């Protein structure tokens, strides 16, 4: 009991209930639900934030016009397919990876970006703001072209992110509970064959035998995990540890933490050995691209490596999927000079 209260005392961002006692209960319940699902409890120094829901938005004292824009951001986040052919060139929605409408811990909840940016980002070696972070997921995860900075859609998406961060102080010093897709410890050996078998057993009922997923009409029911309709080679989830973290914490759908660490890593390794659209940073040669991006990114992926089963060099192609171009204009260095 005493231990659990200390999380609450340290969290500092739980502002949604009228009284402190009610807040403690809410937080405790939130943590209990997560630990019952197999997630670790927060460490004593971690910041716990329960992002507000869309119902909370209706009751919030914000300008009605702002509420309307946040609702639009929510709608774009959960049905990003409405931008298909314009900004999105695969079968993903933002919520395909950021589960629970971008609110779930251990599923890269998106609100931390709103309170930690602008900041330096290793991936592109410069200072990014929230819009540029969102643009990153459009460019790589959606195999797309981000909406213009400052456009209605970009502003609506940013507003939704910021709303989810309501009450958290800017630039928090404590580590954020459940940020990203925390990976379990990497086991000593990863096996393609075991990964394939575990995929067939646990995942293919929804994602298909060839990772293609399932669409009904214009709607994605189950997103593609590799192939032309999936994210491209530049997306964060192509890093084997990120995929392992995503899978362990979120899949199979509705059964988080049900796979062993070994299974999650084996499946991640198997999935990371399949083809997908080219990295927008491609220079025309896979070895050259690898050299330029290895240090900051691809040292954790299988990009440019020969697949152990057939020697196929991953990413050695010009295929950009459905997207009729390689690189959107948003991928450019910033020097602030």
């Amino acid at each position: 009991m005493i231990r659990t209260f200390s999380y609450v005392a340290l969290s500092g961002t739980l502002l949604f209930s009228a009284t402190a006692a009610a807040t403690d209960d809410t937080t405790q319940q939130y943590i209990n639900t997560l630990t019952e699902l197999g997630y670790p409890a927060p460490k004593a120094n971690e910041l716990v934030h329960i992002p507000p829901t869309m119902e909370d938005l209706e009751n919030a004292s914000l300008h009605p016009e702002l509420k309307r824009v946040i609702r639009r951001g929510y709608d774009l986040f959960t049905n990003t397919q409405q931008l298909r052919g314009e900004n999105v060139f695969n079968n993903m929605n933002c919520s395909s990876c950021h589960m629970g409408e971008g609110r779930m811990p251990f599923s890269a909840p998106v609100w931390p970006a709103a309170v930690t940016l602008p900041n330096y980002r290793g991936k592109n070696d410069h200072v990014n703001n929230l819009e540029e972070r969102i643009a990153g997921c459009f460019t790589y995860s959606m195999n797309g072209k981000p909406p213009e900075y400052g456009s209605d859609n970009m502003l609506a998406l940013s507003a939704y992110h910021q709303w989810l961060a309501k009450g958290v102080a800017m630039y928090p010093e404590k580590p954020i509970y459940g940020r990203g897709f925390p990976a379990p410890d990497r086991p000593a050996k990863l096996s393609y064959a075991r990964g394939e078998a575990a995929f067939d057993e646990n995942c293919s009922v929804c994602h298909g035998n060839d990772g293609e997923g399932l669409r009904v009409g214009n709607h994605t029911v189950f997103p593609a995990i590799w192939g032309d309709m999936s994210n491209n080679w530049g997306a964060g989830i192509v890093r084997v540890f990120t995929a392992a973290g995503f899978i362990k914490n979120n899949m199979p759908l509705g059964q988080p933490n049900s796979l062993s660490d070994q299974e999650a890593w084996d499946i991640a390794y198997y999935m990371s050995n399949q083809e997908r659209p080219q990295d927008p940073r491609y220079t025309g040669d896979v070895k050259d691209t690898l050299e330029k991006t290895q240090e900051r990114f691809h040292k954790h992926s299988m990009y440019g490596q020969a697949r152990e089963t057939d020697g196929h060099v991953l990413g050695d192609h010009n295929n950009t999927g459905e997207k009729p171009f390689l690189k959107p204009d948003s991928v450019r260095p910033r020097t602030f000079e």
Partner: protein
Amino acid sequence: MKKLPILLTALGLAACSGFALAEADATRGAASAAVCMACHQADGSGMNIPGGESWPRLAGLDAAYISKQLHDYKSGKRSSASMMPFVNMLDDQKIADVAAYYAGLPATKGKGSESANEATLKRGQQLAERGDWSRYVVSCKSCHGPDNQGAGAVFPGIAGQHAGYIKTQLQAWKAGTRKNDTQDLMGSIARRMSDDDINAVAAWLASQSASAN
């Protein structure tokens, strides 16, 4: 390279699973379905029976889903005293035929939402379309497809089904008496649902249309 052998396996599976003895024939299926009408009705609409055992609507359900259920009753993977005598009358060919017959009938309306109040329906809609992540109840539509009208052969349409039937099925999963779902996918969700939530989602789904047109 990879797609080809997988496609062949899929075809191979369908061919030896016993569903495809001869091509499924809806006309033959109509004849076999004569004994089913007492409960499932001539138009396949079933019946919502408040306080009693409801008969599910079969009209317009996916054929592969229907035949899986009939095989499951027969093998004991799913149990129902009401269905047992009737499913025992069906061999594999007849199962394929009645499945094709019911799948081809136009979907009828779900019943049982009439007495639900607005707050209940609103809660039901939330669960169906957005889920309740604070209890890790994933939205129904994330498996049952757009508008909960079904996704492929594994995830049946549940919109426009009778509230009484939806309720008893979710309660059966919760109690562990229905467990014929692939990988416990449905059971994992149902076990996290309260009775109120089950009633709410059943009412809302019953008020929805079973098909796009």
